Structure formats: C-alpha cells, structure tokens
C-alpha cells in the first residue's frame, strides 16, 4: 500500500515537576500508516507519556512530533485533531455509567457534524463488530470487564480515526479475555485500516504486533521485528 509515516517523532522531550522528572528524554519514533506496533518497557519509562503526546493530550517541551500530517507542536486545534484522528483505549474502560452502551459509543461523535441517525447507525455497526449487539441498551455497570473493554474499543473507532492508541488495554483483564480483546483490536485495525499503537507489559501481547518498540528512560531503546506469525 503506501509507505508514508503517520507518526514522526524526533528528539521529543517532556518533563514534569519543573524538570525533575524527565518522562520523555529525546524520543525518536516513526510509525507507518496502517502499522500495528507495541510499546514495551518498565514502569515509569515513559510509555503512557509517549502515547499522550501522540494523542495530543499534552504538549511536549522540545523536539518535533508530527501525527497524521499535523504538527502537534504548533497546531491550536488539539481537540479537532483528537476527535478526527485518534481513538483511545485505556486500561480502565472509562465508560460513563449512567449512559447505555449505545450512548457511550456515540459520545465522541458529539463534536462532529453527524446527525443522530447516522450516529446511531455507526455505533450499531461497531457494536456489532465487537459482538455486543444484544447489549446495546445495557448500562456499563452490568457488563463484564471484557465486554466493557469491547465497548471502549467501539467508542475509540466510532469517528473513523486514523490511529488507535491503546494503553494496556488488557491490563485489567484475565489472559483469556485479554486475548479476545487483542484479537478484536487486531482484527478491527486491519478491517478499519487504522494504525494501532499499543502499550503493554506482557511479552506475549507484544509479540502480536508487527513491531515491538522498547522504551527505557524516556527513549526508544531498540526496535524488534517479531517473527512473522501465521494466522
């Protein structure tokens, strides 16, 4: 297909507490469009910080970061960028408890000019894709952990983002449920043709990606190409 980089990061730095904590310390990373990479590394190494920078949840102090053709060091429209280009999946599902599954999936579409009819259509399509079409009117509190994470995945995809940023999406699930979620993510990533960047602690999860990036002390340490799997 095409080989252009959807994420281009060079010498990115971000520190907290007046420079005492260097969460990102000269990070370099390139991700191709449609790629599935996993980010691994010890706790506190800066994985979540990296994801936050890519998702424009925070601004870096130094360096350059270009995502989906937008210079995130300069743009003023961070909200628009997030709404259009990014879908987040967090370790905790973070669904709104008093809204139904269907409504939760529609939440990101509020900032787009989508009619409520189209909103519903798109949400239903994704809920079907994550196998929850029979639970659309349930409240998230009535769902299992895996089901909630499936709703969160549908929510992340609803605005047709170009990148899914998943921060330990299976971290709070048992390994069997986690596998279902991972396969679903991988599946949707190819079906919806989105780039998937996933942070994980677990090596076997990381192995599923096309590329593993190891982060250490706020820098990309090495990049491994896992052996091609069948399936």
């Amino acid at each position, binding site marked *: 297909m095409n080989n252009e980089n959807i994420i281009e990061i060079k010498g990115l730095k971000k520190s907290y507490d007046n420079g005492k904590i260097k969460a990102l310390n000269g990070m370099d990373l390139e991700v191709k469009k449609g790629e599935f990479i996993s980010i691994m590394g010890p706790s506190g190494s800066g994985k979540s910080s990296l994801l936050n920078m890519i*998702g424009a949840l*925070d601004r870096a102090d130094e360096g350059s970061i270009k995502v989906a053709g937008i210079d995130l060091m300069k743009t003023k429209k961070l909200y628009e960028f*997030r709404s259009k280009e990014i879908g987040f999946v967090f370790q905790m599902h973070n669904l709104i408890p*008093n809204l139904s599954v269907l409504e939760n999936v529609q939440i990101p579409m*509020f*900032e787009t000019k*989508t009619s409520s009819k189209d909103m519903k259509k798109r949400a239903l399509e994704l809920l079907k894709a994550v196998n929850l079409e029979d639970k659309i009117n349930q409240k998230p509190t009535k769902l299992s952990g895996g089901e909630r994470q499936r709703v969160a995945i549908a929510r992340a995809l609803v605005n047709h983002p170009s990148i899914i940023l998943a921060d330990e999406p299976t971290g709070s699930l048992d390994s069997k449920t986690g596998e279902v979620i991972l396969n679903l993510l991988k599946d949707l990533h190819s079906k919806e043709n989105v780039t998937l960047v996933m942070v994980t602690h677990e090596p076997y999860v990381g192995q599923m990606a096309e590329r593993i990036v190891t982060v250490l002390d706020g820098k990309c340490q090495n990049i491994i190409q896992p052996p091609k799997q069948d399936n």
Partner: protein
Amino acid sequence: MCIGTIKGCEKKLIMSFLSLVVKNPFRNKTRSALAIVGISIGIIVIVALGMVTGGLENSTQSTLKAGAAEITVIQTGSSSFGSGGSLNESLASSLLNISGVKDTTGILRATNTSTTVSATTTNSSAGGFGAEGGVSITGIDASKLSLIGIDTVNGTEFTNTSTNQVIMGTTIAQSLNKTVGDTIDLYGKNFTITGTYETGNFITDAGIMMPLSTLQNLTNNPNKISDVLVKVTDNANVTTVSQSIENAYPNQLSTTTAADEANRINQGLSFINTASWAISLLAIFIGAVGVINTMIMSVYERTREIGVLKAVGWRDRRILGMILGESIVLTLLAFVIGTIVAVVGVELILTLSPSVGGIIKPSFAYDIFLRAFVVAFLVGVIGGLYPAYRASRLSPTEALRYE
C-alpha cells in the same frame, strides 16, 4: 453525513447532548436531592411571600376606588381607627359648606369584643390590621354606604330605623361561617344579617355595618360620631380640600386621605417586600453555596471521565456547557418543585384557616413566578460557573491519571 437541513441535524445533536445534561444530575440522587431541597426552600419563600404581599398590594389599591370618600376626618389627637364618638354628628353637614366638598357622612367606629366573634380576634391581631381584640363595627347611614366603598350589597341593606339589622363583610362572614339571614350576637343582642358586601379592602371587608343611630345607642354615644367621610367634587384636588378642612377647624380636626392610607399600608408592604427580598437573598446564597458544593463534588468524582471526554475530542466549551447545564437543571427542577409547594402550601393554609384566607387573596401575578424562575436560573449559573470552569480547564493527562 447529515441528511436533511443542517439546522435539523444540529437540533438533533443538541438533543442528545441535552439528554446527557439532564441525566447526569441524577447519578448521585441523594446529593442532588439535597441541593434541590436547599434551593427549593428559597424558591418557596420567594413565591409564597410574593403571592401574599402581592395579594395585599392588590387590596390596598382597591381602597382607592372611585365612588368612595377620598378624605376621612377625625378629631385631632385620636387615632385614625379610633373607636367611640368624639365628634358631633352635626359636623358632617357643616363640612358640606367647605368648597370642593361634594358629600359627607358621619360614621361611628366601635369594636365588639363579645365571645361570638373571638375567631377573628386572633387573625386581626396577627395580621396587624383592623380593630384589635374584636370585630370592628361601623355605624353608617344606609344611603351613604357608597362613601365607605360599599357599592353593592348581596341581600339587602339594613334600614336606618331598624335596631336589629346588620350587613357584613365577606371576610368576616366567611370566618364566622355566616350568610344572609343568619343572626349574630353583638353587645348581647341578636342581629339579623340582611346582606353581605365585598369592597376589596381587607379592613372594610373584615367588618360589620349597622345603622348609625343603633350603634350610637348600643355604645352610649348619642349624637356622636368618630369620623366624617368626605367625598370631593369631581374637579377638586383632594389635598387642597383636606387642607381647607383642617384650616377651618384648627387644632380640632385632622384629615387622612385614602391615598395616605394606601401609602401607609404600602410602606408596611414595602417593608415586608424588603424583608422578603432579604430572606430570598439569604436563601439564594445558601442555595448557591449548595449548588457549588454539589457540582464541585460531582466534577471531582468524574475527573477521569472528564479526561476521557477530552481524549475523545470534546472541546473545553462543551464540558463547560455540560457542567453548567447540569447545575441549571438542578436549580430549574428546584424552581418547579418550590413553586408547586409554595402555591399548594399557600392555598392549603388559606383554605384550612378561612379567617386568614378571607383577608388575603393570594396574587398569581406572573412576575412573581418569573422572579422565582430568574432567581433559580441565576443560582444555577452562579453555582455552576466555577465548577464548570474548573472541569473545562482540567488537563486531560492529569484527569486520566487521577485515581
């Protein structure tokens, strides 16, 4: 994406956002209910006091009605509602000689404290109006009833020569549960109620009228009167005429005009109004503090959720609007509940206690409800603004890290 007009689509979008705003306050029912109760109390105070003072204002306006005497003449030094005769009956006709005077009549005011009417005793003192400690009885010529504001009598007027006939104001009739044809014990004598009247003036309507001569005899005030009611000619100036009367009888007669009286009552009412505003302000202040507290707690608890909303692309403005909207939903709900409780409460008190109900006809003027609505809305905005601002300014990463 949107099929149909852009406006139609935006409307639908707003609808789903609104449904979120309306749903959210009910996530923590107890806390929201407490906030609503707090604001409702303020709304109840505003609406109930508004209805009552508004009703009293309407009543004083009707004291200035056409046909009735504009000037009341009393002896200097006696109170304006003084009982007993201190003036000579002949004064009424003498005053006709003063220029600008069209008609006069002498009346005698008295208070009957017999046990039969003790029901009104508590009310009139509670209200602060009317004769203290009993029912006020006025002796007047039947043909001059219009001067005191009685234009029509339901039933018949008393005859001037009768010694056992009275007419009765609707207020007192209601509180004593009397109608035309019933009898009433006054000064140890039985009187037949030949008619009832309603002037709109709550003092007059809480009283009894009988022939002047009958009351003079009963109270041992032969040929004496307490007041002269003076009606001025159509083009005369009320103030000028009352000045002329006082000048003609220096140190003997004082005058009050109906306008003066209304002013005096209105002054009392404006005091009540000021007091009710002060109470309302206090209630609003407490309500606003309650709303701020409720909304800050709500934002605090939903920190992560707000982080997620930002992560999925919600603008600060939308988050501000959501929290502010939730706050306004709370206070408008309190407006609805408070208004219903106030209206039902006032009506209930007035029907359960007909003696009070007769004096006060609650006002349903729309501006009372408008005032309460504006207050509720403002409390919502003021109470919600700071929490909403805080929520909208949360850093997404901090919010998402929040445990």
